[in-house]
């Protein structure tokens, strides 16, 4: 089976890999590019654990045909922190006890980041809408919603 070349930008790094035709982007990111932060929860597009940003907007990497990522700019939780400096969302999730098993967290953070990039001062309902494609089985969602609002406030110099 002939593999095909694929290049894309992953968290500001240029990536070139060879992929099996028909692979999904999630598999390519994890096993091809070695970025293990997006997770596979269903491969059906229903859990959101594989959420990544493509050209700045959230996509489900499990439902993205790898070939269609050619030349695109992909962001994952692996690139969220700047060096040792955590993104305010990460800090807020930590301090807000917004994760238990942690498996949904990377996808949640990507959906939340996309929201705050577009809407720095979201309402609670906007936060809920932004994570509506991301399932969490542990927390009951409330700590996650609170953490995103806290991060937004912090980024705006407010206290939530």
């Amino acid at each position: 089976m002939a593999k095909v070349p694929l290049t894309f930008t992953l968290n500001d790094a240029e990536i070139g890999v060879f992929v099996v035709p028909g692979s999904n982007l999630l598999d390519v990111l994890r096993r091809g590019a070695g970025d293990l932060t997006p997770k596979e929860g269903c491969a059906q597009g229903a859990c959101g654990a594989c959420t990544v940003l493509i050209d700045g907007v959230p996509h489900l990497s499990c439902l993205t045909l790898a070939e269609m990522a050619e030349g695109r700019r992909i962001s994952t939780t692996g690139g969220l922190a700047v060096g040792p400096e955590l993104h305010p969302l990460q800090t807020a999730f930590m301090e807000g006890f917004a994760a238990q098993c942690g498996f949904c967290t990377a996808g949640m953070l990507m959906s939340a980041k996309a929201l705050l990039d577009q809407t720095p001062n979201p309402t609670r309902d906007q936060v809920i809408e932004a994570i509506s494609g991301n399932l969490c089985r542990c927390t009951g969602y409330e700590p996650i919603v609170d953490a995103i609002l806290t991060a937004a406030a912090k980024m705006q110099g407010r206290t939530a």
Partner: protein
Amino acid sequence: MSLSVETYPTLREASQAIGDRARYIGGGTLLMRAVNYGDQSFDRIVISREIDRTIRNEGQGVRIGAGATMADVLASRDAGFLHPVARVIGGPAVRNMGTVGGNLFAAAPFGDFATALLALDATVQMADGQNQPMESFLSGRDRARGLVVAVTVPRVSEREFRFAKISRVKPKGASMMAIALWLRGSGRIDEARIAFGTMGPTPLRAKAAEQALRGRDLTEPGIAAALAVCCDGLQPADDPLATAWYRRAVAPVHLKRLLLETR
């Protein structure tokens, strides 16, 4: 039976490439799930470099390229009357991926956008230049050949078009039922088109109810006859979300609430 991916420069060429064992990929939300789960019914994936994501006014209608995503619809002022539909489809990621063209092929419990297009009597434009009304397109959907390149939707006012998605999970969940209404007339209903989603193998019209609304006003007595016959012609089935019995039982309730705007 390993998969191959074929890329074509134009929609027309891509359209000619699809066939028994070749599927076109738009947003991927339907096709890639099938790929991931080893669907054995195809082994070629067809991509077109030419993707029509444009949304523009065209005559009396709005033309939406089949490659337009739900997010594109939400970003379009011209398609403003369709925002209530696009907004309730999937989460943000799905809306960035799922296309209008793909939605026409989505089996229950998906296909909310197609339900709306059926109520609005949209026209489906195929790659070979043929045009088809939504209703006949949907009834022949499983045998459809060729690519959809665009749909043209009559431009309606937000007052004339109403949409309800009944889902148990909020804010995002699969449809237990979707209802789209196109109501024309002032005071009394001159013309009504009613489409139900997830009440049959494809979105279906409630023609008896449409008939019964004609000449009536939107009051409880005015709509009573329509509610009584609203399931005529629908073919609800049991599925994990609800039984056919329940769907029939609550269809008039949700239709009533949409008509009287008491939702």
